[in-house]
């Protein structure tokens, strides 16, 4: 290991090799070599008889050597077996001190770097995912598979689904959960900084695996990857889907453990559970839910891969397997997962509203208990995805009860939001516009969920466009809008620049109008009985589909408005103030750009950060009580 003291001095004289190793460049190079070697070796062993085995081996090789190349194992013999602790300089080196922009391309442990990496990745995934969406709308604009053949279309639908699901799962907990959350609770970093880097780079490593499906024939199953079809599928593109999920589920588990531990042990003095910002509650509840949900997704994909590679028969009926097993494993993840997406976005909206209405959150404890209620109830609702599976279990009634019970804690969220707006001094900024749009869309998404939760109406809607429209209203209309509220709100803190508010408003209105038009007409198509996943739209559904496609043009325009806004802001945006919006949470008390260890002195919290209309400060400032903590608390463990 390089001695820490020499880093600063030598940084100007580093040659190219030192700059590239370790970094993402060397990771990719080694990863590709590893993939080729593993693939060829397994090909020789299996005598080229088992393409799936070769491909899975190549993916394993890629992952392993990518992480070697990017330096994930750096220093493992020095510190990993506790032969000695890291020195401060070594920690700073790992955290990317003095590495300039290169720190964003390395296995950097600083939570702010990881947050920025997540933000960039989220936006890139959203961009590709939305391109998939527009291709879907193009294909469905007229009856008959005209623009793409059904195989291509099915792959596009599946890729759109997975890209968006991954993007929405990481969109709040990734960028803001990593960048903002530790500052918000008054910590200097996450509890496990290296796991933090691992969680990001696992998602990154999953991306080439996922896109490689295009080279291997795609996959026909959509994002759900339903099993007999996934096992039957001859093209090895299916393996890419399974392996992507395995990497991604590992990443969310690692990230979740890290965030839970951080909030449990690294809150600053006075940051009691009753003073935690709503946003922190939302993120921690979301990741706890993710910890229960994602392992079953991981296992289901391991089983599919075993069926495909080793010819086991977990899901093949003729050999004693069951497709219901897959459906249960999948939806045991699949339904909590939408709340994994929802909780932090809802919490973000509450956080933003309090700041821009200049009012305390209306019923903080009620709102938090609402979020907790959603989190708990959502673990046992997955059975409603099997209402029409034919299994007809005695649990259909309880599943229905539980699904509809969720509307009670969700109602508490709405009470809190409406109450926070009511009689506020509302500053109509772009973030608050997105919150307003979110509430409008979330009501529509929520009440349409009732039809799908209830047995008699689900019978005419299950597996149809109504479902598609419903979950787009909740996931896109509500949660992605919540993300954008957070995005416009925290962008000045994270990047130090002010996004153009006029372009922001154009982005919002194009998105909202386009979104409502697109998915309200798809509700109608679903009501008429249009099935999901149709490359070939039946003529009787042509009109609502065409209307939906035309409105989608507005959404496309909004995407490019956002891209333009981000690029132009990064290039020549105004500098933002350290406390751009007058927020009272701790991230607004630190300078922008946020220094490496966040706080010079760790603050002492004395109240909730929503004491608008009250003279009391949130923290004890300049009273001499501010305490110095050792810099990296990780090494205390």
């Amino acid at each position: 290991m390089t001695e820490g003291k020499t880093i600063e001095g030598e940084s100007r004289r580093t040659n190219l090799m030192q700059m590239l190793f370790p970094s993402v460049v060397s990771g990719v190079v080694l990863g590709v070599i590893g993939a080729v070697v593993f693939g060829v070796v397994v090909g020789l062993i299996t005598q080229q008889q088992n393409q799936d085995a070769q491909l899975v081996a190549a993916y394993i090789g890629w992952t392993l050597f990518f992480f070697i190349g990017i330096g994930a194992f750096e220093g493992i013999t020095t510190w990993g077996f506790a032969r000695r602790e890291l020195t401060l300089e070594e920690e700073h080196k790992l955290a990317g001190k003095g590495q300039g922009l290169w720190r964003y391309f390395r296995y950097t442990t600083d939570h702010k770097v990881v947050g920025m990496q997540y933000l960039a990745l989220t936006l890139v995934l959203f961009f590709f995912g939305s391109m998939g969406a527009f291709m879907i709308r193009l294909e469905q604009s007229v009856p008959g598979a005209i623009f793409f053949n059904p195989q291509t279309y099915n792959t596009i639908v599946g890729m759109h689904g997975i890209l968006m699901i991954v993007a929405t799962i990481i969109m709040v907990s990734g960028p803001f959960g990593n960048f903002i959350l530790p500052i918000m609770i008054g910590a200097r970093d996450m509890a496990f900084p290296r796991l933090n880097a691992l969680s990001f780079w696992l998602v990154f490593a999953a991306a080439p695996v996922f896109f490689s499906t295009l080279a291997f024939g795609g996959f026909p199953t959509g994002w759900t990857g339903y099993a007999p079809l996934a096992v039957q599928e001859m093209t090895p593109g299916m393996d890419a889907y399974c392996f992507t999920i395995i990497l991604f589920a590992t990443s969310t588990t690692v990230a979740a453990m890290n965030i839970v531990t951080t909030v449990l042990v690294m809150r600053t003095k006075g940051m009691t559970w009753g003073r935690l910002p709503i946003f922190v509650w939302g993120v921690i509840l979301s990741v706890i839910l993710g910890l229960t949900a994602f392992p079953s997704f991981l296992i289901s994909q391991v089983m599919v891969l075993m069926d495909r590679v080793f010819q086991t028969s977990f899901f093949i009926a003729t050999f004693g397997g069951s497709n219901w097993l897959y459906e249960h494993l999948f939806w045991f993840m699949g339904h909590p997962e939408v709340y994994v997406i929802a909780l932090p976005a809802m919490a973000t909206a509450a956080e933003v509203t309090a700041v821009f209405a200049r009012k305390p959150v209306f019923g903080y404890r009620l709102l938090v208990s609402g979020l907790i209620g959603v989190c708990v109830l959502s673990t046992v609702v997955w059975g409603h995805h099997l209402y029409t599976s034919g299994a007809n279990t005695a649990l259909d009634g309880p599943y229905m009860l539980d699904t509809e019970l969720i509307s009670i804690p969700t109602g508490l969220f709405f009470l809190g939001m409406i109450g926070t707006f009511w009689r506020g001094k509302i500053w109509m900024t772009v973030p608050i516009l997105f919150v307003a749009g979110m509430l409008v869309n979330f009501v529509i998404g929520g009440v349409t969920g009732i039809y799908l939760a209830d047995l008699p109406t689900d019978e005419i809607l299950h597996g149809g466009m109504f479902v598609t429209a419903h979950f787009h209203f909740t996931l896109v209309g509500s949660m992605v809008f919540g993300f954008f509220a957070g995005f416009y709100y925290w962008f000045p803190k994270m990047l130090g620049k002010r996004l153009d508010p006029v372009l922001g408003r154009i982005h919002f209105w194009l998105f909202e109008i386009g979104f409502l038009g697109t998915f309200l007409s798809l509700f109608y198509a679903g009501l008429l009985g249009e099935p999901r996943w149709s490359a070939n739209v039946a003529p009787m559904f042509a009109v609502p589909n065409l209307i939906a496609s035309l409105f989608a043009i507005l959404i496309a325009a909004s995407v490019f408005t956002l891209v333009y806004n981000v690029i132009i802001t990064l290039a020549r945006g105004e500098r933002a103030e350290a406390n751009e919006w007058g927020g009272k949470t701790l991230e607004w008390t630190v300078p922008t750009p946020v220094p490496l260890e966040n706080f010079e002195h760790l603050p002492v919290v004395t109240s909730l950060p929503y004491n608008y209309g009250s003279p009391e400060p949130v923290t004890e400032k300049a009273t001499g009580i501010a305490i110095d903590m050792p810099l990296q608390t990780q090494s205390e463990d």
Partner: protein
Amino acid sequence: MSEPNVDGNPANTSSAHKEPHHLRRAVIIWAVLSVLGIIATILLSPIIMPPAASALDSADNFTFTVFTVLAVPVAMFVFVFLGYSLIVFRTKGRPTEDGIPLQPTPFIQIGWLGITSALCLFLVIWGLFAFYQETAAASSNTLQVQVTGQQWMWTFYYPQYGVSSQGQVLELPVNRPVEFYVTSKDVLHGFAIRAFGIRVDANPGEVTTTPLVTPSVIGQYEVACVELCGLYHSYMWEFVNVVSTDSFNSWIVDHGGHL
């Protein structure tokens, strides 16, 4: 706990000086819009809903309309209070003072929980009743149809007549209860006839059934596959012909079956 703002709820007291009575205004707007919305729902639902060809489907459509009538005031509540706040309480530029630090009174908390719980309970009870009404007792003249899904077509076999539909059209007599026994030869398919209000998955290695359904209107309808089943999933459409009993009998004979 130092939570400084647990005041009462000054907005709800009528003593607000000179301010218009916002709460009363918003409630009136909400009530008017809700009534209008409910009337619109009742008037429009026969136009919007696709025609039903069985009692089961009309019952499902009716439940849909009932839920929509309930949903209108709920949605309107959020739209109106949100819209009112955004229009009336907005400031010009950055606010210079803070809003009134309202906190929910116990009355609001209990009332809100009570109303949402009552709505939720109603939905569950309605759903259970409506669903169990569907499990009608089998009558003596039930027509049995074995439905087999395979990539990418449906085949229908009538065991009582020893006949199979070769032209991939599901022929059914009007006003006679039908029970479908659904299975799949390969992967998961979803057997759905929107006009009858039935929908069940076709699972490989399992036989699933639909509720007993009686087609009540002569006409042509569609069977769709509603589970993604691979390449030509969206082409897995077939027709359902509901015909008179005489036509059905002659159709059976034409296809080599015995009556």
